[in-house]
């Protein structure tokens, strides 16, 4: 299967752009309000930090320091599959492919945001 992201830059372009577009919408920004979410991706290695404590929310592409309310470590391919609707977030977590640091309940609360991101991702992919 072809890799969805050629390199780290491709991850930042597609996923960084996706989350920036998503959080620019105040309705979606509200869903994650007050949270700092960090994605630590592998293959290719990349890091995204969504700071929804700021208004408007800020998306940082690249390594970042400091605590996050929710940190997800997962392969970039799996994130692509989750956003494409081919894999579930809970399944990925259940079988250990997604490592979570922070409250798992916050992960559940973020489901509507992931669903919205998936809709946007699929729309952009078409």
């Amino acid at each position, binding site marked *: 299967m072809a890799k969805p992201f050629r390199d780290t830059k491709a991850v930042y372009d597609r996923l960084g752009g996706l989350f920036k577009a998503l959080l620019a919408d105040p309705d979606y920004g509200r869903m994650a309000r007050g949270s700092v979410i960090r994605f630590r991706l592998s293959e290719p290695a990349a890091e995204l930090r969504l*700071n929804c404590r700021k208004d408007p929310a800020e998306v940082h592409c690249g390594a970042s320091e400091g605590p996050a309310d929710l940190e997800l470590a997962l392969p970039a391919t799996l994130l692509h599959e989750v956003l494409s609707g081919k894999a579930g977030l809970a399944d990925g977590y259940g*079988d250990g492919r997604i*490592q979570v*640091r922070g409250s798992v309940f916050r992960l*559940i609360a973020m489901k509507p945001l992931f669903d919205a991101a998936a809709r946007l991702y699929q729309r952009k992919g078409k």
Partner: protein
Amino acid sequence: MVAMSTNGQCGATTAKGSPCRGRSVADTGYCRRHQPPAEEAAEPRSTGSTRGERSLREEVEDLLKRAVDRLPIGRLFPALSPGRVVETFRAGIEKVAPKAREELLRSARNFLIRQATWLATDTWKGAWTFLSGVADQYRGMLQRRARGDYEVDAYGMDEEFTDWIRPAFRFLYRFYWRVDTTGVQNVPGQGRGLIVANHSGVLPWDGAMIMTGIWEEHAEPRYVRTLYLDWFTQIPWVSQMLTRTGQILAHPENGERLLNEDRLVAVFPEGLKGVGKLFRDRYKLARFGRGGFARMAIRTGAPIIPTAVVGAEEIHPTFRRLHLVEKAFNMPIVPLTPTFPWLGVFGFIPLPSKWKIHFCDPVPTNRYRPEDADNFLVVSKVANQVRDSIQKKIHELLKERKGVFW
């Protein structure tokens, strides 16, 4: 009107209670006068239910059957099998007055449809997968940590451990001490900064709450590296806890090194005099040492953020210090509080006072040259300015506070 159709006679009862003498029309069982409305007449008279109600009832029975069927409970208790539950429902719904019945059925249908997601097997399977995932991840983490497979930074801070205990600190911050934090925007989100706060409460809970306040309230949450007293290293567990959460033994070199690395550092210049303060001296700031913190800030050009903490003085109100015991056990502080030593280890449980933390406007130090750190007058000026800001803010916060516990 009671239905009692007999041999061509009207089956209705008159208002006086006697049977109607009229003849029934076209086998409806009623005379012209007592003809029921068109729809009601088509329904069986015994139940008094309408066609709409009947379909609603069938729908609810079907939903109920499917809902109970999804739950494994019927296999364990035959009385709760789908058939029996539906029978019980049928018997129960018959007892409800016809007017209320339709309303009740509608509510039951809406409830069952709403709960369909929760009752679906996939939901429960998903929840089970998720929960077993949580258990696996925690088990994996504990096993990995038991093997010593975890990372710490140059100062011994273990970010994973810190994140793991954050919910406990969050609980204390939000629910136990109900901390009100203000002025958090005065703490820099990036770059170096020196938080200088008043110290109290025997154990360093004030440091933990300042750290949690920045985690929870700041738009750019970051780790705070507190410089702690060497006395805390003598208390079992406390030293390990402090090191793992990123706190460092108080020493000017440590502080300067951290600030030069553009970190956020917190100091409590009152030191032991602050934590060992008697209850009658509460909120009276002790001497700020020899201004070591000001020297550190001037040398590194870090802004100083004076911070006032109100509430920590009451968590372990010290009425007396047991100096003889302190000398005998070589302990710097052995306090006599309402709970310690009377309740033994339970005496370490702090009281749930109401806390307020305010981060005051930063005091810039970049207008001084690094050499000014050796100028006693400059150092005292900066130290006194910071001390005065904290004391003034403490008085303001005390005025705002309604009581010690609320």
